[in-house]
């Protein structure tokens, strides 16, 4: 169960983007999607999210191939956290999180919808600001709102597009701790794209490195985050140190 991607191929009309991508994320696991800008990380998320249709390969969510599921029923299993966006209207936190319940709702907000949302706001520390417009929140708080909205969908798989971009160190740690705790508690398989290799080393159970349309390396983060791999994929020399089983990446100026 969880998420399984087998031999995925995707091309825009004129350009191959993803070639023979395979990986698996089990419930409660966090997979980090690594690679330089423009390598196709977001495209891969969009294939899993059924926004793009791959030319070949299969994507399996909770044992079901997503091309056999309607968008609506996929939304019952899978949710997506986009990069933090600004809203042009003063949407309150509670209304924003409630939108995550939309796949289950018609017009009326059912008791179950309220229960899920209220409990989530509590778990995510958003009770105090529940009725504030999201534009007045800090970047970290807003990211918590978007994660809460995705969890409100009660997904089995969650995709996150750079959840830590635009955040300072404290809030990067806070968001990822919260995410990690939530997916373990609720048994969700999570995939996130991330640029900070140290955060990937600290929080991801597994990482997948993309290079030239292909999977360059895939496995437990302590095995994949090596000086060689990083140099091949990013073209940057680094020093990788191990501390308490986690890999830490130091940039060098060479």
């Amino acid at each position: 169960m969880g998420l399984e991607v087998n031999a995925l191929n995707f091309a825009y009309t004129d350009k191959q983007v993803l070639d023979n991508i395979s990986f698996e994320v089990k419930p409660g696991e966090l997979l980090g999607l690594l690679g330089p800008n423009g390598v196709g990380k977001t495209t891969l998320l969009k294939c899993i999210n059924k926004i793009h249709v791959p030319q070949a390969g299969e994507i399996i969510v909770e044992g079901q191939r997503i091309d056999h599921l309607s968008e609506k029923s996929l939304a019952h299993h899978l949710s997506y956290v986009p990069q933090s966006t600004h809203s042009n209207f003063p949407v309150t936190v509670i209304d924003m999180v409630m939108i995550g319940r939309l796949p289950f709702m018609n017009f009326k907000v059912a008791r179950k919808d309220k229960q899920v949302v209220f409990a989530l706001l509590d778990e995510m520390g958003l009770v105090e600001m529940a009725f504030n417009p999201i534009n007045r929140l800090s970047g970290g708080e807003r990211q918590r709102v978007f994660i809460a909205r995705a969890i409100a969908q009660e997904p089995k798989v969650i995709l996150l597009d750079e959840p830590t971009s635009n955040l300072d160190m404290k809030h990067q740690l806070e968001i990822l701790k919260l995410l990690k705790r939530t997916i373990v508690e609720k048994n969700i398989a999570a995939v996130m794209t991330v640029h900070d290799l140290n955060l990937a080393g600290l929080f991801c159970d597994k990482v997948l490195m993309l290079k030239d349309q292909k999977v360059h390396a895939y496995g437990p983060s302590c095995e994949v985050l090596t000086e060689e791999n990083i140099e091949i994929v990013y073209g940057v020399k680094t020093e990788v140190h191990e501390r308490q089983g986690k890999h830490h990446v130091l940039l060098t100026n060479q």
Partner: protein
Amino acid sequence: MSEERLQVAYKHRSFKNIIFIGACLALLIVLTVLAIAVGSADITIKQVWQSVYHFLAGIKPEPSDQRIEKIILLLRMPRVILGILAGIGLSVSGTVMQSITRNPLVSPFTIGLSSAAAFGACLAIVAGIGIKPHTPFGIVLNAFIMSLVCALIVYAVSTKIGMSPEALILTGVALSYFFGALTATLQFIADENQLSAAIQWTFGSLNGATWFQVILLVVIIGLGIPLLMKYAWVLNAMSSSGDEFIKGIGINPAKMRGILGLVVVVMTASIISFTGVIGFVGLVSPHIARMIVGTEHRVLIPVSGLLGGILLLVSDTIGRTILSPVTIPVGIIISYIGVPLFINLILVRRKEYF
């Protein structure tokens, strides 16, 4: 513990919103009765009730009351009700347009409907082109058809490029200028009488309102608003989140923009075909409503509609009475009233809103 607090606060908010909708509705009804009574012919509120009662019960009024009852039933009532319907329809359309484009600067006219309608009217008045162009109904029909043509072009062009908010707005704005140029060309070659009639049309007024128009708008708005309300949650999502996320929760944003846009186009086009261009109300009532009740469309749609109805009714009543017996077009008055009200609200509630 905090969950219970949320429960209470959420309930409290819903309760407050329902009360507010009720209060707006009550205010609108009171203002309607007052507006029917106010005007160059002095009428008491009792006479208003009496003539409505006589009409409904099929009682023939005393000969001495006949003139008054005729004024009430055939002049004042259709005018007042048409104004309310126009205000409701334009405001709800504005709310939905802003939400499906995620753009607070959009009004029902952003996609070119008003310029196209003005061109249609002008075509009938000046060039005599259209179905029965020399009758008032021919002008209405021409205006309506031309707005639909405009909407169709906007739709055709924006679908080609994925029906994004930007595609809709930019094609609409471009077409506005195009129809504006067409209208100006006609006005350039028009004689004085035609020019005056064509310009009068664009002022936006409720002169010559009839029960036929009222009934037609009741049907169109009566079908349109419940349909939009049915999509309230979709609108909640579309107004607050990007298309990527929208697709992720199983909604096709391009399709929704098509469906909801069509409802808005039909409502707006039928209103402005009868009244001419009444701008501003469709831009501003959605914002006033958001400042008061927030962005949840199940509440926002009725509130912005009711506020729009009130705003238009008050404006027209002032327009009818302030320089009586001259009637100033409601399209002019509404900006005089709406703009200070809006700016005041922006200043007072700025922090929460922007």
